[in-house]
């Protein structure tokens, strides 16, 4: 056996803490080792070439690379090995950087640890056997979850590339939060104007199957071959028949809406039969069984049905529908929740009528909003003075530590719009003004020049004015003037931050991906794989990965789409061969393993033995550890290989 060991300096990342020369010479002394080298950057082309050259020159038949985490470069080096006509699985990687040099300071201890780890790898790799990656065909369809701007954009990008896309949206319409906005910073172009064309494009696209009012229920399978169940909730209106004329809404026995309108955040009321907003896509009404008399008593005149007449689009008997689809890739664009401002009671939301959330103001300033674009107080008066408090639920140890990235800019936008529509005095209470994007700083200056007041200080308290005039006193320390300010206002706007969806944990488990500490979906690598997840073939885009503005969101959705396209256009996907297999002649048919497999990959054959379906097996190895007679083995993680690793760590070779 001729083993080659390659120790990466990773610049000083490894060499700064681990004595790579000493390590290399130690490795050279290990039995079976023919070559032991250290090099500045093993992952670089010359580094990889070094390995390939040695394999040829020194007839190496096993390769150990001691560098960074295998999660980063396992594949890189396998391919390098393969290029030298050595089976890529005659290779093992040692994690000297993330697990050693980066986490230890004591150079001696770190070097000693490195020696243990490499020694273990050397013993292990001797037992490696040649393996073939399994190639499985990829389904060209794609699933996009979430119909906000991220999902819409990703869907269109892929549909335009000729891929069939299933776009699944939970609400009755796509559009997401963006559809609720009036204008967008910093350019102040109206959200609807730029969004609705895309929405209709989705509706009309021959490559897109749009399922609104629907949710993903189950996900099985693996990269390239995901089997997904989608639950289509009944809207009691047949999508194919409804043309969105909305006459039924007019005709409803309710003359006035009685139900709080979700789209307008309860600032207006809607009827039992309704459409979220005029430009909703699909332009199809929905019936709310909670509110509808027909559902409650069955004694409704059903004027809606009359007016719908021969179109017959209304169907009170409609049942939920389960759709089974098979897709090659999945893009998650499930967006965010707005921070619930009632979690900070002293801002008085819900207590004082004229405390609003930023999103409510978005609706008020919106021409198609509940007030037709009039910014008025609950009693209809125009506000004279308005306070806008930044960082509500952000940058705060008690709520969320992170910065929500968009609040500063949309607060500026709202300040501008309120001033424009009401001429009121506007006071912005901010901690830091964050305007890092393109033309952001300019926008800040512009708004400042308009005469919006900026107070550098966190809003500390809110209480009603003593004279009962209904105004609110906003108390804050102006850290620039170094004095306490008490500003009486008619209206307070709370710039709520962005949070992970309340159900993001369920969703992440559904798709078998991870969450980072803040609860947003975890990307495979913060820099190099920002839209990938640890589940191959599942990508993330937009605010489900973290707070971001529309341009960044769209950029990410494009990136996710590109990743999915690249995957699909490869036609096939190579699966790691780390599957478990039964040694048939050894198996006694005790069946211990069968109940343990989470993928039902193990079956009981007519020969009364266990048998593992290689395609269904994902290689967790649980059955291997459980098999009482040692008759199940796992490629890449054979008992022998692991025992060798243990022995290598603990005993001197």
């Amino acid at each position, binding site marked *: 056996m001729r083993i080659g060991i390659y120790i990466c300096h990773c610049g000083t990342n490894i060499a700064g803490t681990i004595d790579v020369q000493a390590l290399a010479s130690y490795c050279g002394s290990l039995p079976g080792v023919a070559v032991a080298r250290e090099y500045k950057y093993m992952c670089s082309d010359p580094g990889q070439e070094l390995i390939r050259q040695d394999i040829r020159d020194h007839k190496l038949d096993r390769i150990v690379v001691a560098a960074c985490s295998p999660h980063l470069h396992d594949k890189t080096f396998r391919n390098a090995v393969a290029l030298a006509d050595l089976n890529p699985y005659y290779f093992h990687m040692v994690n000297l950087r993330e697990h050693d040099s980066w986490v230890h300071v004591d150079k001696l201890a770190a070097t000693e640890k490195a020696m243990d780890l490499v020694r273990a790898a050397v013993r292990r790799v001797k037992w490696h056997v040649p393996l073939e990656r399994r190639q499985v065909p990829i389904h060209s369809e794609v699933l996009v979850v979430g119909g906000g701007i991220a999902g819409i954009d990703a869907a269109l990008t892929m549909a335009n590339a000729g891929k069939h896309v299933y776009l699944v949206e939970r609400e009755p319409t796509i559009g997401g939060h963006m559809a609720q906005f009036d204008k967008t910073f910093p350019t102040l172009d109206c959200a609807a104007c730029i969004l609705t064309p895309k929405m209709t494009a989705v509706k009309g696209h021959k490559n897109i199957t749009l399922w609104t009012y629907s949710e993903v229920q189950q996900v099985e399978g693996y990269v390239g071959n995901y089997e997904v169940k989608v639950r289509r909730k009944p809207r009691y209106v047949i999508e194919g028949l409804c043309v969105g004329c909305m006459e039924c809404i007019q005709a409803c026995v309710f003359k006035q809406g009685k139900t709080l309108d979700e789209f307008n955040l309860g600032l207006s009321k809607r009827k039992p039969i309704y459409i979220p907003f005029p430009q909703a896509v699909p332009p199809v009404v929905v019936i709310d069984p909670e509110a509808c008399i027909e559902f409650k008593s069955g004694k409704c005149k059903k004027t809606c049905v009359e007016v719908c007449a021969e179109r017959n689009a209304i169907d009170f008997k409609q049942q939920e529908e389960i759709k089974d689809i098979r897709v090659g890739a999945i893009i998650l664009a499930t967006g965010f929740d707005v921070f619930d401002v009632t979690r900070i009671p002293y801002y008085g939301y819900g207590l004082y009528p004229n405390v609003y959330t930023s999103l409510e103001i978005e609706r008020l300033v919106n021409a198609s909003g509940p007030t037709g674009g009039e910014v008025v107080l609950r009693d209809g008066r125009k506000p004279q003075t308005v306070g806008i408090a930044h960082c509500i639920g952000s940058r705060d140890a008690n709520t969320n530590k992170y910065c929500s990235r968009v609040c500063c800019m949309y607060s500026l936008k709202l300040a501008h719009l309120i001033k424009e529509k009401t001429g009121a005095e506007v006071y912005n209470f901010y901690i830091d003004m964050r305007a890092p994007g393109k033309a952001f700083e300019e926008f800040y200056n512009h708004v400042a020049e308009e005469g919006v007041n900026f107070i550098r200080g966190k809003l500390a308290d809110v209480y009603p004015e003593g004279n009962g005039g209904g105004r609110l006193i906003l108390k804050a320390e102006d850290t620039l003037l170094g004095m306490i300010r008490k500003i009486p206002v008619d209206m307070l706007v709370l710039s709520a931050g962005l949070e992970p969806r309340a159900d993001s944990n369920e969703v992440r488990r559904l798709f078998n991906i991870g969450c980072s500490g803040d609860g947003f979906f975890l990307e495979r690598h913060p820099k190099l794989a920002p839209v990938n997840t640890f589940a191959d073939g599942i990508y993330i885009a937009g605010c489900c990965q973290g707070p971001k503005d529309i341009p960044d969101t769209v950029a990410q959705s494009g990136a996710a789409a590109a990743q999915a396209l690249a995957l699909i256009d490869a036609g096939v996907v190579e699966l790691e061969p780390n599957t478990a297999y039964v*040694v048939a*002649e*050894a*198996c*006694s*048919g*005790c*069946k*211990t393993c*069968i*109940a*343990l497999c989470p993928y039902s990959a193990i079956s*009981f054959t007519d020969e*009364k033995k266990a048998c593992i379906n290689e395609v269904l097996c994902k290689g967790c190895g*649980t059955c291997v*550890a*459980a*098999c*009482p*007679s*040692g*008759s199940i083995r796992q490629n890449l993680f054979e*008992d022998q290989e692991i*025992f060798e690793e243990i022995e290598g760590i603990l005993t001197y070779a």
Partner: protein
Amino acid sequence: MKPKVAFYWCASCGGCEEAVVDLDEKILDVANAVDIVFWPVALDFKEHDVERMPDGSILASFINGAIRNSDQLKMAKLLRAKSQVVVAFGVCAQLGGIPGLANLSDAKGIFAEVFGDGVAPVRFHKENGHSLSLPEFFDTVVALDRVIDVDYYLPGCPPTPKIIGDALGALLGSELPPKGTVLAPDQALCEQCPRKDTRPEKLLLKEFKRVHQVVADQQTCLLAQGLACLGPGTRAGCEAMCIRGNMPCTGCFGPTSRVRDFGAKALSALASVIDSNDEAEIARVLEALPDPAGTFYRYSLPSSLLGRRRME
């Protein structure tokens, strides 16, 4: 002339000798086929008779019992030198057997238990001019292959007449099995179990039962009835006698060739099928296995990865 064969017994119960006698009528054929040159139990050729023999002059020595004292160690080494083939006969020689449970304690602990603080035996004793000696009693019981090189193993407590017969056949036959072979099927007992088909395909257990707590049904898989049957991890070859006796397998045939630590694997298999993901509930279910070491290492403690309890 007939090939020479020796039998010797170390720390064992004599059941292995009985197993030889259980060859019944066949015993006479064996006696005719070979020349038994050493068998303290039956013939009193002495240690130095063996010493006088040329090295390798014995075809095969069948040694049963674990190694527990200095006499046994001495004899094992002597026989190894004189024999072409050494067979570890029975589970005590193969894995340590039940005498190996002594490794949960040590010489000190055992003497204290057996003799208390009264008179206790000593290795060398003088009494009115008569000096008497006893062999050294080791702290740790070990399997035969820990002290000498072993060629073959005959598992079981005791081995069945069938596998003994087969083994003798193999040894007297033309080509020998590969060194280190355990002379029994290399599959788990379920393969031979008459109740194999009655185990559900997906068996998960909410409850384990101790044998005295239930009246076991005579047809269905004992594990399916919640009894800790070790058949799934135990080498076949006994024809499932205990199960036919309506009692769970306790593992006397030891592990298959693919397992390093019988107990660890048996433990893993049993624990894995507990139908709960709640730690407290799992612990409750496992109360019915009050003695993991004694249950999973009943016959194999000395040859387990840890070998013995670590004494303070």
